[in-house]
């Protein structure tokens, strides 16, 4: 790792929660909830050009059971909302949500009866990304912002599950397994 060369025979002390959160933040597995056009940029974000593996997040898990950050990328309709929520509920705690793009964050240009005007109406969102679509760099920025949150032990959706996390007074949804 190279740490030995810097430290020699000496050692570091830290708090256990800091060490765990540090591990977590550098190994976030995204759950790609690619619903429409934003998903293309999300793929570029994972691809070799933007290369999110530099941030330890290259392993896109297509199983919610193995992932800890859900990237909701696309226009979420009322019909799709139930699917998004179900997949979110299947993810193990602690978990985070990135709302990618104008549609996901606010309904975007689809100010209409069929589109949910912001996914925070049914799942807790940690980071919002502006843009239509946001550039992959923007999503990387969102991931880095999320990493800071993870290091601080914060999560909107699962605050009580994090070691050393701040207890928030918001009601926290109990995980429901498979509906």
């Amino acid at each position: 790792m190279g740490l030995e060369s810097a430290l020699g025979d000496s050692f570091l002390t830290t708090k256990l929660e800091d060490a765990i959160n540090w591990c977590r933040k550098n190994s976030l597995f995204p759950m790609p909830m690619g619903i429409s056009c934003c998903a293309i940029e999300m793929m570029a974000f994972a691809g070799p050009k933007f290369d999110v593996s530099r941030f330890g997040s290259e392993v896109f898990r297509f199983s919610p059971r193995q992932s800890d950050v859900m990237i909701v990328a696309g226009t979420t309709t009322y019909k799709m909302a139930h699917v998004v929520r179900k997949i979110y509920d299947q993810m193990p705690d602690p978990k985070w949500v990135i709302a990618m793009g104008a549609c996901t964050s606010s309904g975007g240009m689809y100010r209409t009866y069929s589109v949910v005007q912001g996914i925070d109406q049914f799942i807790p969102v940690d980071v919002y990304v502006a843009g239509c679509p946001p550039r992959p760099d923007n999503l990387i920025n969102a991931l880095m912002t999320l990493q800071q949150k993870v290091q601080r032990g914060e999560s909107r959706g699962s605050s009580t599950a994090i070691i050393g996390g701040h207890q928030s007074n918001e009601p926290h949804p109990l995980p429901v397994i498979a509906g």
Partner: protein
Amino acid sequence: MNDHVVQKLKSRFGEGTFEFHEFRGELTAVVPLDQIVEVCRFLKEDPDLHFDLLADLCGIDMYTPVKRFGVIYNLYSLKSKHRIRLKTFTEEEDPKVPTVSTVWSTANWHERETFDMFGIVFVGHPDLRRMYMPEDFEHYPLRKDFPLMGIPGSLPLPKK
């Protein structure tokens, strides 16, 4: 070619049956509701006309007291590369139009979509379910009296 189609239709169904419009070379025929299947079948099966492709079928809400809802058929002939548009109208109360899915099977999904958006019932359709909206949704979103942002509470969200 348009004149030829008009002639053929007139000689088969009589002078006063249709109302023809022509705009920039596009022919439109307004067909009486009860004859729509017959006309479609004739246009498809006549070897000379041969409108074998139903390019699109859609609904329209005129928002008038009489003949409020309409169904529009855009036909195309792969043989002669000719197009024709048919229109038929129905009333606001109990809008019913006979299905043409027996003539072109592609009409099946088009009619389901029109039913979903306008609530026009296609009589004789083999599987008239909603296409886009949830099965238990009670409104028809493309009707003119449906509000743009929908009816609050009609589409439930998952619990937070």
